[in-house]
């Protein structure tokens, strides 16, 4: 436990330290300043822009930017839906995998286009190599880039004064893909290949096990997908069991690299903000607020998982190495807990342990991460989500200092509050109403265990499974509590819709909000204005997030994980 706890701390520290130069690099890329990678990457960027016919100097206002974002996503959705629905007829299918069933394809494509990567299929049996590359891996690049682009546009809007232009969506997406994600993915992918992740076009291996039985071992173009799945807060694994699978995550070292990859860009975006808005202190404050939520969650999860499961202990099973049910021996309880929290605060959704088997409170932490969904958060969208909390905190704190509220010198008025409200309301609505409908269907069905087959252990744990699924969809996270029979029309369609709406409402509403702020005149800051980079405001923001989160989700937390914890205790 000692060394593992040190490893947990070291990963967080290392991610924090490396996020600073990464964030500054991203800021340079998106504000058109020179970087040391330019000689290699700028020609590629130019090539892509020329091939796509994008005019790099064309500026867009928030509406045009949002329309471009939506339009490109519609095209991506249709194209990739076609790929998985027709994969049997397409090349690169050495294992002879069939076409995807329509509701599952709807769910899968909605999931990948929204950067969620909730998987109701298993990669090794559900997708051909072609689909893995041109649906999964491709979307993992482009959708991560879309999130980064939206965030960068928002940051630009914050620096504008009586102006409406916030950049060009296509240029931003290209830059994010080519100049941020591509080089990072190359490095991480290479490291994973070195650690043993496969990179092959040959079909599944066939082997004779020590028991003398034949076994088919799925493999394929694994390493590049895993790299971008981690870096782009995608989370959709090559294999059904995600990063618990030895080919996706072969060793403790690969585990550390992958955990770092989860955190790197989401943490880096905060420093990008500091640079682009030219307020380094604000970035430090935001980072500190997020750390002040992230660290306690990691601590609880690590303590709970390392402390073992009292229910299993009563059966006489030694819990000295922690609660190891559903965990990989090569990672151990603390690193699994660290991953579980990191992957859910950041909307990544990859797993290196089965979250269904986490101890109740250890399993609550990933849910909290998805409920808040802005502690570092998904690439780009994490800050966009936190931005809504920032607006609410500014509104309340601004009044408390005796001024009509303002954010960085821009007045927050009813239009801004309306747009923030939309984003604020949608998240709990999707999670609570979704889970409520699932509960209703379950209770209204006779013999639901047989008729529906969703839950194998009803009661608080089953409740957690359904709650987790909708939380994951609404947070565009993509991890599953598993244990839930989720490849059914109900879950495919309901979570598919939730993922789509939960992607675009919380991006477009804040973009509109930022566009409205950009058009306003900026006011200079005086001793009487609220300083966003002060510790006092930081605490206010922290408290607003904590209290709103508590008020929205305490009842469901009590009915699921907490009730289970109290039963198990």
């Amino acid at each position, binding site marked *: 436990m000692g060394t593992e706890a040190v490893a947990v701390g070291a990963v967080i520290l290392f991610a924090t330290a490396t996020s600073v130069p990464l964030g500054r690099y991203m800021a340079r890329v998106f504000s058109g300043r020179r970087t040391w990678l330019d000689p290699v990457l700028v020609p590629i960027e130019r090539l892509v822009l020329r091939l796509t016919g994008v005019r790099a100097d064309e500026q867009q206002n928030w509406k045009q930017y949002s329309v471009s974002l939506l339009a490109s996503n519609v095209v991506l959705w249709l194209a990739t839906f076609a790929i998985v629905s027709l994969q049997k007829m397409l090349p690169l299918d050495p294992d002879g995998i069939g076409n995807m069933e329509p509701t599952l394809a709807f769910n899968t494509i909605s999931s990948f286009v929204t950067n969620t990567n909730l998987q109701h299929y298993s990669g090794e049996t559900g997708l051909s190599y072609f689909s893995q590359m041109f649906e999964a891996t491709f979307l993992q690049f482009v959708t991560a880039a879309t999130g980064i682009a939206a965030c960068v546009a928002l940051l630009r809007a914050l620096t504008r004064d009586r102006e409406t232009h916030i950049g060009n969506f296509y240029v931003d997406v290209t830059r994010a893909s080519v100049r941020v994600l591509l080089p990072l993915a190359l490095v991480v992918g290479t490291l994973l290949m070195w650690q043993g992740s496969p990179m092959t076009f040959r079909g599944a291996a066939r082997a004779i096990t020590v028991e003398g039985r034949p076994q088919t071992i799925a493999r394929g173009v694994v390493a590049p997908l895993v790299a971008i799945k981690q870096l782009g807060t995608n989370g959709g694994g090559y294999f059904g069991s995600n990063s618990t699978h030895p080919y996706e995550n072969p060793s403790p070292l690969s585990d550390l690299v992958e955990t770092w990859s989860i955190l790197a860009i989401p943490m880096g975006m905060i420093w990008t903000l500091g640079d682009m808005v030219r307020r380094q202190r604000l970035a430090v404050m935001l980072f500190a607020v997020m750390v002040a939520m992230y660290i306690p969650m990691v601590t609880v999860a690590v303590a709970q998982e390392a402390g073992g499961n009292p229910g299993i202990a009563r059966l006489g099973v030694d819990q000295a190495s922690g609660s190891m049910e559903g965990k990989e021996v090569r990672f151990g309880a603390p690193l699994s807990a660290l991953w579980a929290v990191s992957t859910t605060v950041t909307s990544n959704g990859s797993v290196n342990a089965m979250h269904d088997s986490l101890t109740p409170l250890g399993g609550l932490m990933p849910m909290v991460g998805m409920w808040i969904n802005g502690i570092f958060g998904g690439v780009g969208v994490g800050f966009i989500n936190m931005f809504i909390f920032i607006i609410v905190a500014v*509104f*309340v*704190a*601004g*009044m*408390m*200092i*005796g*001024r*009509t*509220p303002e954010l960085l*010198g821009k007045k*927050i*008025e*009813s239009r*801004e*509050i*309306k747009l923030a*409200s939309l984003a*604020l*309301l949608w998240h*709990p*609505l999707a999670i*609570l*109403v979704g*889970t*409520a409908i699932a*509960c*209703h269907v379950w*209770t209204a069905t006779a013999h639901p265990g047989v008729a529906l087959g969703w839950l194998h252990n009803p009661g*608080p744990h089953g*409740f957690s499974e359904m709650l987790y699924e909708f939380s994951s969809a609404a947070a565009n996270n993509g991890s599953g509590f598993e244990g839930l029979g989720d490849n059914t029309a109900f879950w495919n369609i309901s979570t598919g819709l939730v993922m789509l709406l939960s992607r675009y409402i919380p991006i477009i509403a804040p973009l509109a909000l930022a566009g409205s702020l950009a058009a306003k005149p*900026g*006011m*200079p800051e*005086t*001793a*009487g*204005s*609220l*300083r966003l980079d*002060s510790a*006092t405001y930081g*605490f*206010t923001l922290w*408290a607003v997030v904590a*209290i*709103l989160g*508590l*008020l*929205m989700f*305490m*009842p469901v937390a*009590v*009915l699921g994980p*907490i*009730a289970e914890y*109290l*039963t198990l*205790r």
Partner: protein
Amino acid sequence: MAERVRRMSIWDPGIVRQAVLGSVRKLDPRIQAKNPVMFIVEVGSVVTTIVFLQELAGGGRLLFTGQVAFWLWFTVLFANFAEAMAEGRGKAQADTLRKTRTETRANRMVAGGRVEEVPASTLRQGDLVIVHSGEFIPGDGEVTEGVASVDESTITGESAPVIRESGGDRSAVTGGTRVISDWIKVRITSEPGHTFLDRMIALVEGAERRKTPNEIALYILLAVLTLIFLLVVVTLEPFAHYAGTRIPIPVLIALLVCLIPTTIGALVSAIGIAGMDRLVQHNVLAMSGRAVEAAGDVDTLLLDKTGTITLGNREAVEFVPVAGVTEAELADAAQLASLADETPEGRSIVVLAKTRHRIRGRELADKGAVFVPFSAQTRMSGLDMGGREIRKGAADAIAAYVARHGGVTSPELDAIVDRVARSGGTPLVVAERARPLGVVHLKDIVKGGMRQRFARLRAMGIRTIMITGDNPLTAAAIAGEAGVDDFLAEAKPEDKMALIRREQNAGKLVAMTGDGTNDAPALAQADVGVAMNTGTTAAKEAGNMVDLDSNPTKLIEIVEIGKQLLMTRGALTTFSLANDVAKYFAIIPAMFVVAFPQLAVLNVMRLATPESAILSAVIFNAVIIIALIPLALRGIPYRPLGAGAILRRNLFIYGLGGVIVPFVGIKAIDLVLVAVRLA
């Protein structure tokens, strides 16, 4: 002018009686619908009452459901009461004003110099009336002839009479005030029913009240929070069903009402009305709530030097002649130039010449003297008499005048001007055509306590700019003495306007006071324009506030009231939300303890029974509204600290306090309920 703040006890019995009636009247759902939070509570009360009536017929937890319904109704009533109290206080002030509007008779002048007596209510704009000593002025207007002392205590609360005379900036009179000596002719400037007094009554009564932009934004936030809590509560039903239990509807409604921000929802309009009311207590009338909010945001304050920062009158203290001119010669010329000058400065020159050099004032009318009055353009005044042409004025204006007559000003004169100016005095240069004679040293006296007031403003983050017609040197000396942040010297009306525009273009909110007609454009341009009641009608029309005391430093109080208003709103919003934590800990275990007995450990307050827990939370939620009415009406105290310090303080009191207080309160109510066997 002495300030008189009209104070009123919060729990004035007359107002409370009216408010109790008003709170029942406001149960009308059409009125409630304007406030989404309280509307939900009212709907909840109706539903709970229906459930109670059903239980009355069919049996059930009668005592519990009945009490929940009772307290829900009282939550609505308490909210109505808060609003009615605020309105009642406004009405009480309006009634006091209305009493003064007794039906007066007016002496209207008709063609041919005749006078006819008509009721004041028949007067139209443009009518001329004559008002004698002891009579009430029948309507708002401008004095066209005569001088009179007027008792304006009905409007200002100030008992000392004020002088009203034709021409200049003291010509405006207000209907309902009384002439106590001499007579004046007044041209009526307002139509009946639209007089200043009528407008004032409408404003303090709240009849013209519209939601301000910040209030609208706050209502939106409260509405969305209400919607979120509605989701939380409604979805509990299927969740409970899944868990194998059922939650009675009154319990769900109780939780909903406890969670939605009823505390702030109930008090928002009371806070807004009380803010306007506090301004009225300080004898300031705001034309809109928006102006009050803007006052809290002011970044830059423009203050006229004269009368605001310094005592209105400068006094001549010294004659400094140039070489070749005797002091007596200078004094004589200065006195001549000032004889017809009725300004206090002019008079003080006459007096100084008289006391120092025994030069007596002379009758000028018979000598064909022509007085040249001061104008903002020439910035000189003087006298033409028998071929002599004497001018006094600012150094650069006189230099230009001398130059026009072919003369030059000597470096010596410049040195004198410089010396006087550096000492904070105003150098008034006297010249006769091409010949400069010397300088009159006028001294400004900075009012006591100004330095502290400006320091207070600086702590609030407000920059003060002194506006003066003085030259830069004089201005700098006085600015230094008074402690303002910046000054605009040699200011012409258009400079003031340009300064306001410049500040506004830099994104700042500007406040200013003014009284003269030439202030009107700037008053209109400023974000907060406070017109002095003594000022001209044009100034009063242009500004968005009127100070009845005509005290220019009142701006500071106005800014503080604006800030206080917003702070009260913010603090109670925070308090309201923070309260919910404790309510969850009271109600959630009570709801589910049957399905999950292990949840009893979440009952951290150790409330006696599930029923007592829910009731205690509902009662606390209702009673806290009443408890906070005084705070909403008075506003939370404002201290001129930096933004960070204020936020820390309010977060501590209303945020942390908001988390802790309900834990204590709910527990206490629970103990009482158990003791009196109501649960």
